[in-house]
Each structure stands twice: as structure tokens, then as C-alpha cells.
């Protein structure tokens, strides 16, 4: 039986996880290194991050497979390890989730532009299909396409994810334009919501790119443009740079304080992206249970 998204969100907003990559950096991952390779090299560390999110209250956790498509992994010389990295990613998140959380298999962008023909539609299709299949057969409950800037690429990834028959979440990253309400490629929240819905996504939304405040308005605009549930996972603000290191300045308390605004704006799934930690998820869990009552869907 496939996961039923409507059932999952029936009792109020579902708390998802926070960042994995910025957590790995605390455990010694150098920022130039491929975090996904840790599924094979340091599985205990990856599981530790997933487990910390489940313990903090996440009812959905993702897999550590953001770059685990053939095109992106090729840059690290790891294109041959697509299957192994994705399979391990699902297994690790499954162990961390136990029976307390759902595991959503993560598909991220290729890092190449279709528009300049750095990569073809066919290549992207093949790469996303390959990754989606492995995530699905390894036991993911649903798939999530996220941090996308180009709607053309996002549509290809959603189509590939849908081919598995699993529910599909699709998120774009809004980090551009005067009001930070455009993707890098210029898509608006309305365009994203409409086109991702038309592509067949079961949940649409936004992640990364900026802090939580800006996503309240984007959430409202997406909500008005689609009948699909909305997923929002912002960063812990925009990074500031101190001595060459990225520092996210938003605190867990500040982040959580803004979360009810997201729920009011229509978010059905709430969590965090870059710079957020299990502490953020604990704070979110407290705030959301105060304002809406606990979601017992997965309890």
C-alpha cells in the first residue's frame, strides 16, 4: 500500500526534517566533498543525523541523496555508484526512521543547464529515472524533487519520480529577484505551483534559497495557485561569512516563532533546509503543537 498523502496531513501540518549537509560539516565533511558518498563511507554518521531529526520530532525524513543522480555524481567521479549510493541512502534513513517517520527519497538538481545544452533532456530523463527507480525499489515511502531552479528540469524529475508510482513532492528554490520571489531561472511561485501541479506532483512547495520570513508570502501565493498541499523548508536565514566560514544567524527560537505564519499561509509540511538543526525541529515541534495540536498521523 502506498503512502496516502491526504491521510498523512489530515491532522494538521506534518513536521519534516532539517538540514543534513550542514550537519555533516560539523562531523568533518569538507564543503568540496560529496556528502552522498558518506552513505557508503560513513553510514553511521548519516544515520546519526537522521536519527537526531526523528528524535526531535520529524515525521518525515529525507534520504542523503541530493547529488545522487548520474549527472551530478559524474562531477565527483562517482557516476558508477548511483545505485549503491541511493540504495544505501534509503536503508540508512529507514533505520533512522524506524516506525516513527516516513522516508522520502530525495532527488536534487543535476547542476547543469538545459538551456545552454550542457545537458540534454534525454540525459536528464535517464538520470532521474535511474535514481527514482533505485530509491523506490529500496523502499522509499514517497519521492521528493527539490532545490530546483529550472521548471523544465523539475518537470523531467517529477515525471521520472511519478513513473515509480510513489507519491511525489516537488519544490523549487526561490532566491532571486528584487523580492526574492523568483527562482534563479526567473520562475514565480504561481508558475511553479501551476506547472508542478500540471506535471503531476502530489505536493508542491519551496525549499532552500532564503530564510523563513520570505517563504510566508511565497507559500500563500503557491497555495492560491494550486489545490495540492504545500511543502515549505526554508534555510536558517541567509548565511553570513565570518573568516571564510558560512554562518547561519537565525536561531531555532526565531525560526520556530515564524512557523505559525507558514501554517496560516497554508503549509501542510514544514521543516528546514541549510543551517537548520535538530534543535530547530524540536522548537518547531513545540510551536506547532501549541498552535495546531499534535499531528498523530505517524505516531
Amino acid at each position, binding site marked *: 500500500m502506498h503512502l496516502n498523502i491526504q491521510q498523512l496531513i489530515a491532522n494538521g501540518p506534518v513536521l519534516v526534517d532539517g538540514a543534513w549537509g550542514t550537519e555533516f560539516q560539523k562531523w568533518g565533511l*569538507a*564543503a*568540496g566533498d560529496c556528502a552522498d558518498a558518506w552513505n557508503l563511507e560513513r553510514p553511521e554518521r548519516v544515520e546519526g543525523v537522521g536519527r537526531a531529526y526523528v528524535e526531535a520530532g520529524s515525521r518525515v525524513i529525507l534520504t542523503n541523496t541530493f547529488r545522487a543522480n548520474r549527472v551530478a555524481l559524474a562531477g565527483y567521479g562517482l557516476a558508477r555508484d548511483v545505485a549503491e549510493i541511493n540504495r544505501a541512502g534509503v536503508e540508512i534513513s529507514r533505520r533512522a526512521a524506524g516506525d516513527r517517520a516516513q522516508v522520502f527519497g530525495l532527488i536534487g538538481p543535476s547542476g547543469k543547464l538545459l538551456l545552454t545544452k550542457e545537458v540534454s533532456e534525454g540525459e536528464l530523463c535517464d538520470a532521474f529515472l535511474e535514481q527514482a527507480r533505485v530509491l523506490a525499489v529500496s523502499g522509499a515511502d514517497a519521492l521528493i524533487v527539490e532545490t530546483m531552479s529550472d521548471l523544465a528540469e523539475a518537470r523531467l524529475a517529477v515525471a521520472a519520480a511519478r513513473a515509480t508510482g510513489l507519491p511525489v513532492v516537488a519544490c523549487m528554490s526561490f532566491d532571486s529577484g528584487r523580492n526574492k520571489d523568483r527562482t534563479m531561472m526567473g520562475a514565480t511561485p504561481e508558475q511553479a505551483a501551476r506547472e508542478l501541479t500540471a506535471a503531476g506532483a502530489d505536493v508542491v512547495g519551496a525549499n532552500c534559497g532564503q530564510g523563513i520570513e520570505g517563504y510566508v508570502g511565497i507559500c500563500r501565493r503557491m497555495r492560491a495557485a494550486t489545490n495540492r498541499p504545500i511543502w515549505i523548508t526554508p534555510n536558517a536565514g541567509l548565511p553570513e561569512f565570518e573568516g571564510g566560514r558560512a554562518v547561519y544567524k537565525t536561531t531555532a527560537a526565531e525560526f520556530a516563532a515564524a512557523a505559525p505564519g507558514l501554517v496560516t499561509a497554508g503549509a501542510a509540511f514544514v521543516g528546514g533546509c541549510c543551517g537548520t538543526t535538530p534543535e530547530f525541529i524540536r522548537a518547531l515541534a513545540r510551536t506547532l503543537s501549541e498552535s495546531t495540536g499534535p499531528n498523530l498521523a505517524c505516531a
Partner: protein
Amino acid sequence: MTVFDELQQAIINGQAALAKELTKKGLDSGKKPRDFFPNAIIPAMDEVGRRMRECEFFIPEVLIAARASRAATDLLRPLLVGDEAVQAAGVVVCGTVKGDLHDIGKNIVAMMLESAGFRIVDLGVDVAPEKIVQAVKDENANVVALSALLTTTMVNMKGSIEALKAAGLRDKVKILVGGAPVTDAWANSIGADGYGKDAPAAVELARRLAATA
């Protein structure tokens, strides 16, 4: 509208086929190949840069305009003779620094620089300092443009500048840096000549620096 005005509009609108046609038309009517640059191509790309800065254009519009500009310059460059051909705006060696595989920003800057009349030597991603030194020597470059997206790889910009110093080439080139984590303060602290916060800013800076290199 003159043919230069029409070509300028076609480039801004990203109409590659029309840009090519207008370039031919201009050449047929006796315009000199070199006159297309200051009168149509460069002002067009300046306007594209302005619209990008004003958030009227996003990356797709910029890339399509750059493609239209290339349709014109591909016809014109073989027709430039002698000094005209050599006297491009400058020669830029560009690349994403060692350890970093992100190239979308670098590629966009390279396309914009090319449209602005620079000759581009693109070394790709994960570029070791020695490779930059070699390219500056081989290509007789006067500008080096370094890109990094990651906070931990941006330190390798400094390594590249040190390598150019050690090779005795530092005074021969102007160095500009860019990428999401890069700031003016960072550019100063590593001894770069300037920082471009976006592609149009990088082009403006490259022009200014190349004029003094």
C-alpha cells in the same frame, strides 16, 4: 531605425536568426565588421546587463541574448583583419577553483564576457593553480577570472593568486573573483583586483581592469 539599432534590439530580444540576418544585411550594405561592436553588440549586451541587475531579466533571457549576440559575432570575427582581430577587449582565463565543481555562474560570466568582446579561455571546473599559471603564459592573458560557490573552496582563490605571484605573472594580469560566498572584503583580503557580484558587474569590472592591464 538603422541596421545597428535593429541588430541591437534583436540581440536584446534574444532573436538569434534575426541577429544573423541583420548582420548579413549590414555587411551587404557596406558596414565595416569592426563597427558592429561599439554600435550594436556591446550596447545590446550592456542593456541586457542593466535589465539583469534591475531584475527584469533572469538567466534564461540573458543566455538567449548571449546566443543571439554570438550569432552576430560568429559572422563578424572571421572578417576582422590584422590588428582588429588581435585587439579584442582582452584575453580572459577563467575557471572554477580547485575542489569546486560548480560552473553555472562561471559559464554565464564567460558568455557575457565573450559578448562584450573578450576572448575567453575557459579552463572548466576544479582548476589547479598550476593550470591557471600555464594558461596565462600560453594565451598571453591579461585578465584572470576565478569562481567558487563553496565557502571552503573559495580559499583556493588565494592559492591561485599566490601561484601567479610565484610564477612572476601577478603584475601581468588583473584578477577578478566571484561566486555566491565571495564579497568585496574577501577579494581585498586575498589580493584580487576586484569582485563582481553578478555577471553584468563582472563584465564592467573586466572592462575597467583590462583597460589598465
